């Protein structure tokens, strides 16, 4: 069994915050072979695909009160069963981005325009990643209307918002 580092994002989620960057920051601090034990207030299905991409298998376990404990284990250790339980069509496979946009120095609303333009050119199930200065609050409803999914959060220093958008498959 590998060692697991505990990351509890429940307080962030309860406060209405976005835990993605915290999880990614914890991931970067892991020593080789170490895994991540995540506590969340819901089952973070989109995260499974992101983590699978980074070489982690997951095993989830429901806790009391609708909360979840998820073990992310590096697949190299082979100590866990094969990754990515399919939970529903289109939720379990977030491939590496086909487009990477750095929109940090564009005047608003240009970042949104470029993301929507790039998103409309994605093939089914493909993803794009974008770096922004702010949480793109006006973009989300537009993405939703077009059937896109997304995952985003600020980096730990709060200066950059990382957004991943996935086209409907």
């Amino acid at each position, binding site marked *: 069994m590998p060692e697991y580092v505990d990351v509890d994002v429940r307080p962030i989620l309860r*406060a*209405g915050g976005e835990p993605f960057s915290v999880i990614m920051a914890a991931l970067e601090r892991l020593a080789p072979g170490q895994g991540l034990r995540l506590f969340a207030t819901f089952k973070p299905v989109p995260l499974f695909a992101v983590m699978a991409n980074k070489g982690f298998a997951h095993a989830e376990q429901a806790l009391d009160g609708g909360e979840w404990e998820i073990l992310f284990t590096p697949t190299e250790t082979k100590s866990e069963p094969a990754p990515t339980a399919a939970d529903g069509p289109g939720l379990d496979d977030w491939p590496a981005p086909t487009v990477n946009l750095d929109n940090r*120095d564009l*005047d*608003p*609303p*240009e970042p*949104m*325009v470029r*993301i*929507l*333009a*790039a*998103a*409309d050119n994605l093939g089914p199930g493909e993803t794009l990643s974008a770096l922004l*200065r*702010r*949480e*793109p*609050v*006006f*973009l*989300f*409803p*537009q993405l*939703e*209307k077009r059937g896109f999914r997304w995952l985003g959060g600020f980096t730990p220093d709060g*200066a950059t918002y990382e957004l991943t958008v996935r086209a409907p498959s």
Partner: protein
Amino acid sequence: MIGASISRWTMSYFAMALAWLFLALSLMMAGVGYPFAEVASPDTLVLVHAVGIGWLSIAMCGALFQFVPVLVAKPLFSEKWALPALVLLTAGLVSLIGGFLSLGGRLPPSLWLLPLGAILLVAGFGLVVVDLGLTAWLRPAGPARFVLAGLASLCATAAFGAVFAFALAGWAGSAGNALLAAGIPLHAIAGLGGWLTLTAMGVSYRLLSMFMLSPDVDERQSRMTLGAGALAIGMTVAGGILAIGLASGLSVVLSIVAVFGLASAALYGRDIAGIFRARKRRQLELNMRMATLSFASLAATALLGIALVVTDGFAAHIGPFAFLAVFGWLSGLVLAKLYKIVAFLTWLETYGPVMGRAPTPRVQDLVAEGRATKWFVIYYVAVWAGTLTLLVGEPYAFRMAAAAMTVGVVGIVREVIRTRRLADVASPVRLPGGAIAPHLLFARN
């Protein structure tokens, strides 16, 4: 859903607010109310409430229905309350103004209009406060704290106003009469300083850093600005009521309030200067250049206040002081931001659905800044000239200044309507790929 959609009734609020502004400007041009009547006369009360509630508060509420969800990245608690609130506010203000006209003998005696107006206004502002408060409460950080403090001040302002309305109708007993006799400054400070100024500060932090590509103001820093402002308002309300109850010490309380108020304005100036210095975007848009004239007016208001206190002329010149705060600082900022907000929302509503699928214009293509600049300049120069005419006691020159302000506002409103109608967008990209032109007075979201 995460994120913010377009607020359906913000344009309706803006339109109603501008209608009240035109009414107020017409009264000033016609010589109704201050400076042709006493500051506390019924005619001046008509003018002050048409501006404070009709123009500034309704415009601010409309902006907040759009802006608070953006601040917290969550939908408005209830979109359905916005229109009933606007109806209640309008009906309440009409009734209140009817009451003032009757108080001044311009209408047959019907003082019951005052309490009726107060009840309707409290109901309307109540809907707004609960709706926005519950939304802002979801993420009470940074600018959202200013909005919450502003909403609390709005409650205090409305409560004072309601007591006054009942007292003027003779329904408030001796306590109400005592408050009416000495408490008008508390009502004015809570309204202009707390509700309108603290909220405008909070909104400007985010709008400025957003449109100039500047990092957000450090939370510890803005918290001091808010702390000083909130202390001033808290002191006004609690200390003011206590002093009136004890029948002594009100001037001491107001002096302390002035110190906190000045500290807050100075800290705000420091914060705004920081945003300008750290901006990545060197070229400023019109709304930002005009906002700087509004900040200058706020600084001038503070300096004028100090100068009047030092020369012992504050009580005699409260009129020009309030005029500069209301029309230079608050109205100037609201007009400049309204110009930008209408362009942005119109752009988002029209082109959001087709963005990325068809060539769309930029937000800047919806406006003609060169043409709009002169109207803003006319407006600000007229406001400053108007302040001078009030300081030197030239009421007829003041009417000329009011006429020039009206010319400026008519020009700005014409530009805003052109923006909403997409009149300045070149035809190939005006309505691409099935885009639908927006309605003038509400959003089809």
